[in-house]
């Protein structure tokens, strides 16, 4: 009972003080987030788990050699991936002012469709700045910023909605989380899988593509499922438009 009361009091204090407690919690957690995300990426990118069964069948010297080569290949792949992402972000930077920021948290850590980037007020980031993937898709907006980190809310976070266009048809897209969203569109308007979904409020940027059209929903509307054609968990950098 005492802990419950304490938790409620802490939460109310945070609300009253405009989020001071959570900002401090975040700034304390940033180093841990950086380390844990780095370790997570390293462990799963080097192929240790996926090739373990195979490696156990080989002799010790072969196993060591394979592990060494895998580590080298994983490092190469990570660097190549990082290089490719940075190259595409440079192209975006030439069109609109902003900065490239590293993603410092896992996309699966948050139940609210949020993630953290390693840039904040010191880098000129402000609330509401648009966050763009290396592929040019708008993926979120800056919700809160610390000095060297910011919390981003994905456009498709659960409970969010955004006005969008599929072709020339205006729709309201509702975020479902996990880089998916859905909307409804009247029968008779032709929408097919792969059609881009753009947001006029975000200067016409693409926010996803049509993943599936379900015409069997009944009534005068079809359900349209929208997804991001990129794997967010593989992203290392994003571009923050100022």
């Amino acid at each position, binding site marked *: 009972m005492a802990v419950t009361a304490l938790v409620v009091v802490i939460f109310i204090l945070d609300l009253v003080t405009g989020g001071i407690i959570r900002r401090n919690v975040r700034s304390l957690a940033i180093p841990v987030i950086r380390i844990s995300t780095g370790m997570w990426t390293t462990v799963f990118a080097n192929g240790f788990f996926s090739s373990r069964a195979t490696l156990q069948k080989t002799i010790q010297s072969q196993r060591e050699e394979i592990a060494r080569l895998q580590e080298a290949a994983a490092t190469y792949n990570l660097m190549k991936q990082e290089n490719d992402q940075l190259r595409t972000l440079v192209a975006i930077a030439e069109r609109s002012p902003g900065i490239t920021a590293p993603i410092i948290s*896992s996309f699966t850590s948050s139940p609210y469709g949020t993630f953290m980037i390693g840039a904040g007020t010191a880098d000129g980031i402000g609330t509401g700045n648009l966050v763009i993937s290396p592929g040019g898709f708008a993926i979120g907006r800056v919700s809160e910023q610390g000095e060297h980190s910011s*919390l981003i809310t994905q456009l498709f976070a659960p409970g969010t909605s955004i006005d969008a266009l599929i072709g020339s048809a205006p729709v309201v897209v509702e975020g479902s989380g996990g880089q998916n969203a859905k909307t409804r569109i009247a029968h008779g308007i032709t929408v097919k899988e792969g059609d881009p979904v753009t947001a006029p409020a975000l200067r016409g940027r693409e926010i996803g593509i049509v993943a599936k059209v379900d015409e069997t929903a009944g009534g005068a509307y079809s359900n349209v499922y929208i997804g991001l054609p990129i794997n967010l968990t593989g992203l290392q950098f994003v571009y923050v438009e100022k």
Partner: protein
Amino acid sequence: MRPVLFLIGIIGLFISIWLTLVAAIILVVRYPAWEVLILGLLVDFLWLPSGLPLSHLPLATLAAIMVVWAFEPLRSEFLIR
């Protein structure tokens, strides 16, 4: 076991929310675990943008309070202490 589960829940905050969820469920089923309230609060403080409570409901904290208290009669009834 209880501190280990709490630690797993904390690690889950930075890696995957599912890890935290599983640890929290095991904790509340097995123990009168006030730690789950701390986990819920930390989830909200780390990942929920601050703002009006109506637009950003602290679901993790609320869920933690609910499960901690909801499981209490169940634990009292069935758990061999």
